[in-house]
């Protein structure tokens, strides 16, 4: 027993001892229901850190990465955040993947005065504003507005929503309901499903009885693919719209034929090659996409793009400000016109997100691939 204890102690000290110049922390949900989102984030960050170190690091200093899995559980995110700050002494933290996990550590970021760049979408992360908390993912309301504008131009007014019973679906639902009121659209049905539900025909039957013009489904993982399949099975005559939560090739693979014709708001990354050559985003997105796909042998996902943006922003700030946390915050707030995977970031003292509704573009699934619906 004593031996075990000794080994344990040694392990603690061995892993915490080497002090590299820049210490970067990361919290991603790589297991649990949000692993769909967390894995591409983790892999992107690993890839970028390795590449930066190979090219001589930042200001000649190497970056050491400390990355933990939150399992999508808030208490775990809290524990691991304290671990990053108090044991690994990181200069800044990227993540967490989920909104709930971010909100769980928001006050800790302020208490420990560590810059946090969340990859989650909830508006509550930056509102009320916390000096140390930034958000690189666009807000749900931007995605919702994009969808609603599209529906309005098509003359559709009656909308049914079907949202997941998790943080992602819940914050999407909030945005869907509040924006619908602002834009004068009618929500005729408001249904929910659980991540591990494997049949949605009951909810969809109920929805189809209300004759909506469009059905908007907000969820991540395999469940939306099942919604798409059941939607087709029931032959519902309405437009099916998904959220950016399905913006990964995996969704098309799972839903198969049922994915055809589905419209969704997503980042430009998905259609990088199809962007006009004049687009400012094109070269950077294509580079990231090719690099990711050749490194990991799987399709790029827009969620990995959040980690990409977060890393680039923190890198820029570290380049100019160095390690001092106050200076770091200040230099992040001064970043403008940074061309990221999700749009152009313009941070300020008051805006810790820096994105607007142009973060999203509308995409249609055609012949098993993403097609630009409009730019």
């Amino acid at each position, binding site marked *: 027993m004593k031996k075990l204890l000794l080994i344990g102690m040694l392990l603690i000290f061995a892993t915490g001892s080497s002090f590299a110049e820049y210490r970067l922390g990361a919290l991603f949900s790589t297991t649990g229901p949000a692993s769909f989102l967390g894995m591409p984030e983790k892999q992107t960050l690993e890839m970028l850190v390795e590449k930066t170190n190979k090219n001589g690091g930042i200001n000649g200093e190497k970056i050491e990465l400390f990355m933990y899995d939150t399992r999508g559980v808030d208490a775990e995110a*809290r*524990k691991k955040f*304290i671990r990053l700050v*108090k044991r690994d002494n990181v200069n800044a933290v990227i993540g967490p993947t989920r909104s*709930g996990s971010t909100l*769980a550590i*928001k006050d800790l970021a302020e208490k420990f005065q560590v810059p946090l760049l969340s990859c989650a979408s909830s508006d509550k992360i930056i509102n009320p504003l916390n000096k140390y908390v930034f958000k690189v993912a666009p807000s749900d309301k931007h995605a919702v507005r994009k969808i609603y504008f599209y529906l309005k131009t098509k003359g559709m007014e009656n909308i049914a929503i079907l949202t997941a019973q998790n*943080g992602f679906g819940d914050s999407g639902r909030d945005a869907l309901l509040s924006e619908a009121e602002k834009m004068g659209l009618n929500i005729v049905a408001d249904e929910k499903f659980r991540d591990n539900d494997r049949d949605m025909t009951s909810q969809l039957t109920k929805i189809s009885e209300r004759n909506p013009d469009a059905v908007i489904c907000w969820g991540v993982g395999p469940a939306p693919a099942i919604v798409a399949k059941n939607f087709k099975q029931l032959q519902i005559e309405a437009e099916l719209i998904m959220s950016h939560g399905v913006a990964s090739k995996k969704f098309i693979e799972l839903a198969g034929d049922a994915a055809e014709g589905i419209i969704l708001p997503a980042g430009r990354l998905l259609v990088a090659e199809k962007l006009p050559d004049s687009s400012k985003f094109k070269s950077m997105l294509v580079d990231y996409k090719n690099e990711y796909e050749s490194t990991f042998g799987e399709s790029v996902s827009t969620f990995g793009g959040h980690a990409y943006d977060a890393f680039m922003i923190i890198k820029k700030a570290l380049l100019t400000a160095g390690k001092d946390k106050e200076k770091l915050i200040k230099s992040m707030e001064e970043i403008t016109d940074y061309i990221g995977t999700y749009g152009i970031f313009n941070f300020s003292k008051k805006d810790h997100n820096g994105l607007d509704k142009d973060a999203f573009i509308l995409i249609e699934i055609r012949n098993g691939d993403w097609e630009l619906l409009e730019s």
Partner: protein
Amino acid sequence: MKKINYLFLFTILLILVLTKLLIKNEYYLSIVIFGLFNAINASCFNILLGYTGIISLGQGAFYGIGAYCAVITAASYGISPSIAILMASFFSGILAFVVGYPTLRLHGHYLAMATLGFGMIIYVFMNEMAFLTGGPSGFLDINKFTLLGMSIYGESEFYIFVASMFFVFVVMFELFDKSFLAYKLKFIKESEFASKSFGINIFRTKLLTFSLVAAITAFNGGVYAYYAGFISPVSFNFHYSIQLLTMAIVGGVGSVSGGIVGAAILTALPEFMTAIEDYEMVLYGLFLAVTIIFLPEGLSGLFKKIVGKNASN
């Protein structure tokens, strides 16, 4: 009747004080605090399982009810947090009584299913009653914790509070372990038939224990909510109840130290395994399986054996 084990209580107290004196790093302190919360819950589970034979797979729900009730009443009625926690604990005890009244007449696996179902129902309500609980996105507006006008904030201050609370509960558990009630309960567990013939009202004894344990779990949950500063339903789901079960079993069923040892080890274990993240689940399962297969009385049983051997030498 056995005497109260003062040595055990003293050891616990010593460990708690030494922890405070030696551990300054807030990270390690936070792990200890989580361990203490788990230890109280696992001990509660242990009392149900080890003394009355009730397998309750809904303990996570009582923990959650305590947490949500405490923060909701404090936030919406402006009650001081400590009173709110007491109210939450009381409410949870009453709820356990109401739920236990029909449920505890069930036996074995049927009882396990009923408590599991109760846990599921509460979990759905925590998710769906968004106007009260904030839904799956979680409850944000948790006030700062104050006790008798003193504000408690941060790992170090919370450690003192949680450790004291833990010690009080441990003393209570130890008193309970040596009380007539515990004997009565163990007697019931051995043979309901025999105890009936001795005139013990089995059902009332079980119901009383079940409600008291739910109240303690909820109290613990209320304090947890103020410590965490943010709660959402995932922390109180079925998985947490199963975790408590494994802590109680690994530590050893039917003794006060069992739940504590189990909670300490299973809270610390994942922290050592962050480097081998991918294999964490497998190793956790293996650890559990090996303990059950080779140490039927749990780790605390093993310690007792070792101590007993040394003493006899």
